[in-house]
């Protein structure tokens, strides 16, 4: 993997690919961050494994599904804990986040403006506090400052992405009532690699 050529293909937005970019950036692994315009996508679509973005090329082979890819790189770069139980904790966070994203999808895919507004309100008033609450609870239950004790794993990067990435476009800003989550987001954001990456995207 150290010498592997990685190309990430996605639109020029955070969306579903950002978590992959964050894992690779945190790990200090070089990759081609191929940002595709909407007009160029139809021509590229046949190359994707499942007709969707993101997809990744690893040494010439293509793979899809953002969470599958994030898991793979997390494991490659020691961001997946040390035990199976660590893996379970990380997967809980990942799957909870998928549920959170489904609430966002209900806003994006709403058939009409009234449904869209209603679903948006539900995200802000119900879903966001619920999921932020789960993250806060899991951090509290941890033996350290991260989801898995004292080491940063994929779970922490996922929570950072939830609070700073596309999900946060649909929620209100994270309130002070989630101190552990707030501290986690700050810590991850202060990492040199992450800071440099974020500065480049401004």
């Amino acid at each position, binding site marked *: 993997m150290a010498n592997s050529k990685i190309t990430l293909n996605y639109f020029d937005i955070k969306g579903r690919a950002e978590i992959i970019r964050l894992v690779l950036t945190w790990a200090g692994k070089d990759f081609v961050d191929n940002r595709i315009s909407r007009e160029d996508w139809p021509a590229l679509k046949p190359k994707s494994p499942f007709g969707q973005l993101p997809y990744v090329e690893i040494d010439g082979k293509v793979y899809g599904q953002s*969470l599958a890819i994030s898991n793979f790189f997390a494991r490659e770069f020691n961001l997946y804990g040390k035990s199976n139980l660590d893996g379970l904790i990380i997967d809980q966070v990942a799957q909870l986040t998928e549920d959170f994203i489904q609430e966002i999808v209900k806003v994006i895919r709403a058939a009409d403006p009234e449904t869209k507004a209603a679903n948006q309100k539900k995200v802000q008033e119900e879903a966001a506090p619920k999921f932020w609450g789960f993250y806060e609870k899991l951090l509290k239950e941890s033996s350290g400052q991260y989801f898995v004790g004292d080491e940063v794993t994929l779970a922490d990067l996922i929570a950072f992405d939830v609070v700073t990435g596309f999900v946060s476009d649909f929620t209100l800003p994270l309130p002070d009532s989630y101190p552990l989550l707030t501290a986690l987001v700050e810590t991850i954001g202060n990492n040199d690699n992450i800071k440099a990456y974020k500065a480049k995207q401004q």
Partner: protein
Amino acid sequence: MASSKIIVNYFDLTGRAEIIRLVLVYAGKEFEDNRISRDKWPEIKPKSPFGQLPFVEIDGKVYGQSLALANFFAREFNLYGRSNLDSLKIDQVAQLNEDFFQEVVKVFTADPEKKAEVEKKLQEEAAPKFWGFYERLLKENNGRYFVDDEVTLADLIVYDAITGFIGSFTGPLPDRYPLLKALVEKIGSNQRIAAYKAKHQ
């Protein structure tokens, strides 16, 4: 894990918990299959980690999210491949199946007037799409399993997609997916799986 006490808590249906049950059954690991009636759920809810079913107790600690649990038990019982690349292939199938599942969710959350139309879309567009992905991934491997030459979580997930909750909305698998059909038959004729399924007609 060999001597761990495991309790799977869910309603008395296949739904989201079936994959957890299938992994444990396939692995030959005993567990308490706690099937909860709808009226008992409210009093159990506070015990669940995230206010939902399924949740699983492992040696007294509770965990949620069916795929997280399926992954955990798959890893415990050597059903998660032999390399990180194997796991990537398994996770691809798992995540595709989550997308497939979301298509089914569209059916039972549809407004009554729209339900028939949404169900038609599932059966005529989404189901062939995902069946097609699974058939192709089987072909790209060796035609028998998704990873290497052995059953992994991916095979059990797809078996569940066709015989479980998703399958009850899509209708039967057509013959034009021969590798998929053969896989489902092979998993279904596993002694432990067959005995378990017979118990839950």
